[in-house]
């Protein structure tokens, strides 16, 4: 008995060592060929695709809910079936609820393309999960608004890493029958909750700290926050305090958009941050909700289609991305999701002729008030050099602390 137990332990130890040695190299080698980007970010040296080959037959796409619809959620929303027939690429769709989830899933190497927001793009680029894109292979790239091209979140050192998809703002949604008067400030989810105590909902991701910081920009100017993604220790602490106080009023945190729809339908949540598409779905299900852009402005997103460095279906990935940013389809997505399209010709293709005006597609002054999701890094994004800013790891820790407080 004694010897067999000993040998078992030996076996286990041996297996453990083997398993450890074998479990893939997850640390990227910051090779001498890699180049440094602003903020000290090391970028692996990857080459874009030089020409399209024959379609591989399939493409696995990782997308925000509502971006790639094949009619299975809403029979009227289908811009994939036709593409599958004409391109010879069948499309497998996987949706995600937060940028962190997208980054994690991209890392598995099982997906060929991803719709990444600004708080995910640089992480994906730095880790070598996505490769530069050859914009000349995307026919519709020429028609994309110049204001979206070669931005800090979709390019590094003048190399394009993705194709802009669309942009919009995170809105404040409320139950029109329960929240009176109608809110016009983020204060309604922070320090002026009033009767909605215990019915507030908030987005379950560290990036939501920026929403608190944005609110503090107006309400506590003495903190000196210029950019909600560039917070020094003191500013982060103020945002964390605000969120910890908010927690007492929270009913649920959401990252699954269907759960938010259900919570608003039943009234367990009556007010909180949302996306236009969620408000549309909830209204479609007869929930009396409205979504507004509060006076403080809002956080938002400018999304980018990126191609996985490990993809085996790159031609299909390029074909799909080109299809998604083509005028007609980009218009359909923009209307379905409730955002501004990236393709300027899309504005002529929307079912509602006013869509681009309502969503400010060409209104740069409007988008200057929207703080796109960005990845906080220790070099302050607002240009301050006398202090060190808190990076996303610190935000993650802070968020965990808030959720667990």
């Amino acid at each position: 008995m004694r010897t067999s137990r000993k040998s078992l332990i030996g076996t286990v130890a041996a297996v453990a060592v083997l398993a450890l040695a074998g479990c893939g190299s997850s640390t990227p080698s910051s090779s001498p060929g890699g180049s440094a980007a602003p903020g000290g970010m090391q970028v692996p040296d990857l080459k874009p695709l030089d020409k399209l080959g024959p379609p591989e037959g399939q493409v696995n796409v990782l997308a925000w809910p509502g971006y790639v619809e094949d009619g299975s959620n809403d029979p009227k929303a289908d811009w994939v079936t036709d593409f599958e027939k004409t391109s010879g690429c069948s499309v497998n769709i996987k949706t995600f609820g937060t940028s962190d989830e997208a980054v994690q899933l991209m890392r598995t190497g099982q997906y060929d393309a991803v719709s990444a927001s600004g708080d995910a793009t640089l992480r994906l680029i730095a880790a070598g999960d996505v490769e530069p894109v050859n914009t000349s292979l995307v026919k519709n790239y020429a028609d994309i608004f110049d204001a979206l091209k070669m931005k800090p979140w979709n390019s590094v050192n003048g190399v394009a890493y993705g194709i802009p998809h669309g942009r919009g703002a995170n809105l404040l949604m409320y139950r029109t029958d329960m929240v009176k008067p109608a809110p016009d400030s983020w204060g309604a989810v922070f320090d002026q909750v009033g009767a909605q105590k215990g019915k507030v909902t908030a987005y379950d991701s560290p990036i939501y700290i920026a929403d608190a910081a944005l609110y503090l920009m107006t309400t506590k100017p003495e903190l000196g926050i210029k950019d909600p993604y560039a917070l020094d220790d003191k500013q982060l602490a103020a945002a964390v305090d605000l969120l910890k106080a908010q927690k007492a009023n929270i009913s649920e945190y959401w990252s699954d958009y269907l759960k938010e729809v259900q919570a608003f339908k039943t009234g367990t949540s009556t007010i909180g941050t949302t996306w236009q598409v969620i408000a549309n779905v909830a209204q479609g299900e007869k929930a009396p909700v409205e979504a507004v852009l509060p006076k403080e402005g809002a956080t938002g997103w400018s999304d980018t289609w990126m191609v996985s460095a490990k993809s085996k279906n790159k031609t299909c990935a390029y074909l799909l991305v080109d299809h998604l940013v083509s005028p007609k389809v980009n218009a359909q997505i923009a209307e379905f999701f409730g955002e501004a399209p990236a393709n300027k010709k899309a504005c002529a293709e929307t079912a509602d002729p006013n869509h681009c005006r309502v969503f400010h597609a060409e209104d740069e002054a409007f988008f200057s008030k929207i703080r796109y999701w960005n990845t906080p890094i220790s070099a302050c994004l607002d240009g301050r050099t006398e202090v060190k800013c808190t990076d996303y790891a610190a935000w993650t820790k802070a968020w965990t602390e808030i959720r667990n407080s």
Partner: protein
Amino acid sequence: MRRRRGLAVLLGPPMLWLVVAYLGALAVIFATAFWTTDPFTNLVVRTFTVENFRELLSGTYLGIIGRTLLIAVLVTVLCVLVAVPFAFFMARVAPRRFRGLLLAGVLVPLWASYLVKAYAWRTMVQPGGVVDGTFGATPGYGLAAVVLTLTYLWLPYMVLPVYAAFERLPESHLEASADLGGRAGTTFRRIVVPSLLPAIAAGSVFTFSLSLGDYIAVQIVGGKLQVLGTAVLQNITLDLPFAAALGTASVVIMVLYLLAVRRTGALDNL
């Protein structure tokens, strides 16, 4: 010699499965817990640190571990309180021909998907839901809802072993107790409970461990409640080594629990 080879062929694959897939995975989790992540890309960086375990022992996480333990204990206790009278009725009171039917009744909920049942509870405890309508009040989403849901989900795992123990309890023991002047209460305390204990302990291994690791029901009916499972889930995308450290904590708790249960002799009953 041939027999030995045959035995090796027979036992080899399951042993390989046990050691590589099962113990190997545990070992990898434990080892990962000593690594850290890159602050920008969240990639795992393989440098040795005990920082994760230090953080695990901070107030916040001890609170989460304590809360998770509390839920597991409450669920187990509630399951025992419901299962013992129920199993007693099934095994001792109900006419023999109904026993199969009652047993089927206990097992039928296991046919429905876990998710369907959890979402059913979500609609039941919401304001204006069935619970609210029937009792005039609802606990809402949170700890109470989680305990209720998990108790409902795991009850069959407690009823079955307790039922089996009641079945095995010889009638003669109860008669002997009565003959010697033992009242119903005394008989229950000194004869029934001791012979049930191993069965309850065996059932509690399921209810306790399943509650300890659950995170899906917690997400559905828990509101903003944070337990070990949801904390692992939250960290798995952002800080894998810390998620591994949290996972290690639940493994340690389970090992301690199993060691305690083994002392009751319950593991011989599984």
